[in-house]
């Protein structure tokens, strides 16, 4: 079974985003970028499926600027076989990304698409579900376990209040939650090897997809700041402060 893993290049998880003074967005100039953490989990899960002999080939896909090649290389160093970069400097919304992934899936015919449940920049949590809908495939979102059972996939999902298991026919789309696995670090020899792996460079037009955004940014602002309160000396003071604030 071929596995397609769409990944996104985003601001590094540990960097605090800064809103631009002109309110047009978040400042990404000279900021450390990395693979979206949920996408790393998706790559790891695909590699584990390959190690178990379930996945036969892993194709890492990204839609983004030329630098997204570096993100694909990380995926290849972790165990991906080849990459496809759909290169664009324009802002691609989840709906456009889902249309491009659908077109790639129609060409590549994967048995499974695994991707992150959301990207930590726009926090949309849409691409996997939209891709599944456009392909008419079932989905297992927010996965914390993926088990192949004959031609079915059993996906355990993190839902409000606990865990839920769904059975999917294949081909299917799975989106990853945090506790699905702990992604490996790419070793130096694997990073060197990944440099020789093939990355095909495409454009949205190659797939006949118009990526004109449907949503326009009116402004991006800082959230309301919360002021630090006071430190209290002991439990008794805390209780009396909480009482006078009407909290207890």
């Amino acid at each position: 079974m071929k596995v397609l893993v769409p990944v996104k290049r985003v601001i590094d998880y540990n960097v605090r985003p800064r809103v631009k003074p002109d309110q047009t967005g978040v400042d990404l100039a000279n900021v450390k970028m990395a693979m979206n953490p949920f996408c790393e989990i998706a790559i790891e899960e695909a590699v584990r499926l390959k190690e178990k002999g379930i996945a036969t080939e892993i194709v890492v896909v990204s839609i983004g600027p030329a630098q997204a090649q570096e993100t694909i290389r990380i995926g290849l160093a972790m165990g991906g076989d080849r990459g496809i970069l759909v290169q664009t400097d324009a802002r691609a919304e989840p709906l456009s990304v889902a249309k491009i992934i659908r077109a790639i899936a129609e060409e590549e015919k994967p048995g499974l698409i695994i991707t992150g449940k959301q990207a930590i920049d726009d926090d949309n949590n849409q691409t996997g579900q939209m891709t599944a809908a456009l392909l008419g495939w079932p989905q297992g979102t927010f996965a914390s376990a993926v088990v192949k059972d004959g031609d079915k996939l059993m996906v355990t999902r993190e839902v409000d209040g606990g865990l839920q298991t769904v059975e999917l026919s294949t081909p299917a789309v799975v989106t990853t939650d945090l506790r699905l696995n702990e992604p490996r670090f790419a070793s130096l020899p694997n990073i060197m090897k990944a440099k020789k792996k093939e990355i095909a460079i495409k454009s949205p037009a190659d797939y006949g997809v118009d990526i004109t955004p449907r949503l326009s940014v009116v402004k991006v602002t800082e959230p309301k700041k919360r002021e630090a309160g006071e430190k209290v000396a002991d439990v008794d003071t805390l209780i009396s402060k909480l009482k006078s604030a009407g909290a207890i």
Partner: protein
Amino acid sequence: MAVLVLAEHSNSALNDATGKVLSAALAFGGDVDILVAGENARPAAEAASKLAGVRKVLLADGAPYGKPVAEALEALIVPLMGAYDALFAPATTNGKNAAPRIAARLDVMQISEITAVIDKDTFERPIYAGNAILTVRSSDAKKIVTVRGTAFPAAGAGSGAPIETIAAPSGPFASKFVREELSKSDRPELASAKRIVSGGRALASSDQFQQYILPLADKLKAGVGASRAAVDAGYAPNDYQVGQTGKVVAPELYVAVGISGAIQHLAGMKDSKIIVAVNKDEEAPIFAVADFGLVGDLFKIVPELTEKL
């Protein structure tokens, strides 16, 4: 103009999230109908019909909807959207699972987790885990929106809207519900709790998490949360997680015990009305957002607090 609200419910009861989505839909404007898709879900539909501002309740009752998969909700809702200008769904795991499928089928770019309705096309939503607020304008004719419940008030009581039964597609669908393991608890659910006590990595073990956090939560009649560090270390189950990738909460009182206050945790709780922090490190970032901070050993402070409350 007409808006369809997707109800969050347990078949036998309506979840508070529904009323908050209704408040967002009423701020958007137009006639608002609530869709209750469930199995033997008439009690939930009756509760929905008693919310203020509802034109009518649509009840789609059938076996696939007791624990509906996204594919079943897609099959039900996409045809209904011919009669509506917008779908407002809760940003619960259920809403987040289904809404993008419906949006894609209607060729609409969804607007996720809105925190304010500015006008018919314009909404506010947090991005970068709440480190920035995006005001966004949609050019789509129909709007598909998910709503962050903590940002909207609960709905009031109304005089009773009619309940209309509609046909529910029976499937089969390409995915199937198999089972659910829900944490059994008499405590308030995190999303709707008025008070929350959360524990962090400093609790150091699952036993101590239970021994120190639970009695304080019981005393306060509070829901129980945890930081990602505590969940990852196995001190608390994953559905306790408050933060960027867990639950976003805004109770009246949030007590953070042994939580340092990483960005991703703050993103999930900084809209709480009153924040109390107990931490032995006086430089911990949690104190920068806490109304009342107590520096010291949680293993002494928490039992004393539990005792004296």
